[in-house]
């Protein structure tokens, strides 16, 4: 019998702890498949964040380091500078990357660190129970913004892809989503391109993935996918924000 689909070798057999309907699992699969297809699992080192993906070190089937909250790009910098021929990636959420770790993210991009950042943006702190994130939408309710995010008090959501795209050291920055089979396939191609450009030594690469949090959004998994499209897309438009291979052409 022909095998038409099987789990990627890029993931271990550990059972994922993510909530039903959360899209972290899809993003893990896409990263794992990419590492397998590029045949770099044996020389890959991943860095897990603090947040919902804190156990990612048990899921990716390659060497892993667990970083302090927000410090994954600094940890990845240390790894990549010691092992310049290896493939190094971080996997971070919006609190980790856009709040407590924003300096590490910006300066890794500034130095043109040859790493790939997988930035999962679900507009909320998931692991700690639904607190407001820097990417929480205006009016969106959170346990620390019970009446909804008030821009006069907390400002408006930060757009990391747009911001990092202004930095010369960034080689590839794209925002994708994983709400439909087509968008998942598209996200896979984007993630693969980011890793390829890292391997080509072109600089800092980041894929921002708009993701769901049914548990803390108080929605069903299907409603959550719709919520991404209806509410997040207008604030976080998809697209390639920086691609040095296009600029050089």
């Amino acid at each position, binding site marked *: 019998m022909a095998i038409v689909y099987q789990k990627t070798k890029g993931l*271990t057999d550990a059972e994922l702890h993510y909530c039903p309907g959360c899209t972290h699992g899809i993003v893990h699969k896409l990263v794992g498949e990419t590492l397998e297809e590029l045949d770099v*699992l*044996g*020389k*890959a*080192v991943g*860095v897990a964040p603090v947040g919902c993906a*804190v*156990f990612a*070190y*048990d899921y*990716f*089937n*390659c*060497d*892993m*380091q*667990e*970083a*302090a909250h927000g*410090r994954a790009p*600094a*940890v*990845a*910098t*240390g*790894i990549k*500078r*010691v*092992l310049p021929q*290896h493939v190094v990636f971080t996997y971070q959420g919006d609190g980790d990357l856009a709040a407590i770790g924003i*300096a*590490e993210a*910006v*300066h890794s991009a500034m*130095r043109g660190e040859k790493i790939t950042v997988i930035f999962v943006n679900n507009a909320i702190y998931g692991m700690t129970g639904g607190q407001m994130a820097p990417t929480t939408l205006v009016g969106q309710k959170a346990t620390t913004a019970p009446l909804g995010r008030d821009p006069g008090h907390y400002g408006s959501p930060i757009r990391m892809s747009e911001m990092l795209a202004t930095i010369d050291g960034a080689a590839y920055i794209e925002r994708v989503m994983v709400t439909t089979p087509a968008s998942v396939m598209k996200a896979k191609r984007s993630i693969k391109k980011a890793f390829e450009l890292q391997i080509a030594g072109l600089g800092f690469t980041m894929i921002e993935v708009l993701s769901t949090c049914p548990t803390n959004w108080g929605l069903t998994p299907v409603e959550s996918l719709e919520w991404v499209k209806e509410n997040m897309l207008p604030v976080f438009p998809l697209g390639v924000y920086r691609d040095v291979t296009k600029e050089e052409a």
Partner: protein
Amino acid sequence: MSKELWKGNEAIAEAAIRAGCRCYFGYPITPQSEIPEYMSLHMPKAGGVFLQSESEVAAINMVYGATGAGARVMTSSSSPGVSLKQEGISYMCGAELPGVIVNVMRGGPGLGTIQPAQGDYFQATRGGGHGDYRLIVFAPANIQEVVDLMQEAFDLADKYRMPVMMLLDGMIGQMMEPVEWKRPAIAPEDLPEKPWATTGTKNKRLPNIINSLFIDPDACNQHNIRLEEKYARVTESEQRYETNDTEDAEVIFVAFGTPARLARAAVRLLAEDGIKAGVFRPITVWPYPYDALYKIAAQDSVKAVVTVEMNTGQMIDDVRIAVKGARPVSFVGSAGGIIPTPYEVAEAAKKALGR
């Protein structure tokens, strides 16, 4: 071998390179900036990595990543910057990662002053970061000792898989002294393998994971017990100290770093007045040489113990633990970048002796 004149900060950087360190991450701060400056020129020449980070927080986390990837790695800073590194130091202890952290202490608290001080003793020996952990802390008193201890610092860090701190006051960092390079330089490729490091599986082994998270409380407790057993082995094996003129002494000075030099000058002043004084100098302030100090302090000849520090009295707590009430323990010192004079130190001894 001939002696060379070296500035403390530059000597510590050169000693690190000679010890096989090929990775430095740091951020400028007075009075230690000669360390990153020296590294920026000489580390690339040695085939190593020098990186000036965006913050001390980032620097220590770069250390975490690089040491996790198997390299000999160090960072350096001064008091306010070392406060920022505490998060990463705690994580390194939790994840059992080696590494050397140099603290060239200045006056505090807060921004304090850029002049030499020893106000970070509690931070260095009691933790500083969160959780139950220890660092091996060397407190050299001259630049020869700085370079001699640097290789040992890296060796012990690797042996026990824990960070080692070099605790200098700004005086040691900024002054110049003759140095003899006693040991041959080590090539990184001659260092022992680190089979736990994340150097890529090469598709030949299961993944290595560097991690300090033990979400199950039983597992976290077991991890702490294992760490504590390691710290007990360090305590058993790695205490270092030096004594000067302690035999038949009436008064014992206890001091680390620069104040130990002042105490030796005070011993000579007291001798002019016919008072026999000696100096006990811990070289490791963790593990603290409690038993060795007790034996010296409890000698029949000793009437008083005086600690000399460039702070408001921190190591005196350890001295009291060591002396166990067998002799009166008093303090002389000054904080905030003022260095006590040998005369003040000698007077404190006379006062302690009731003269």
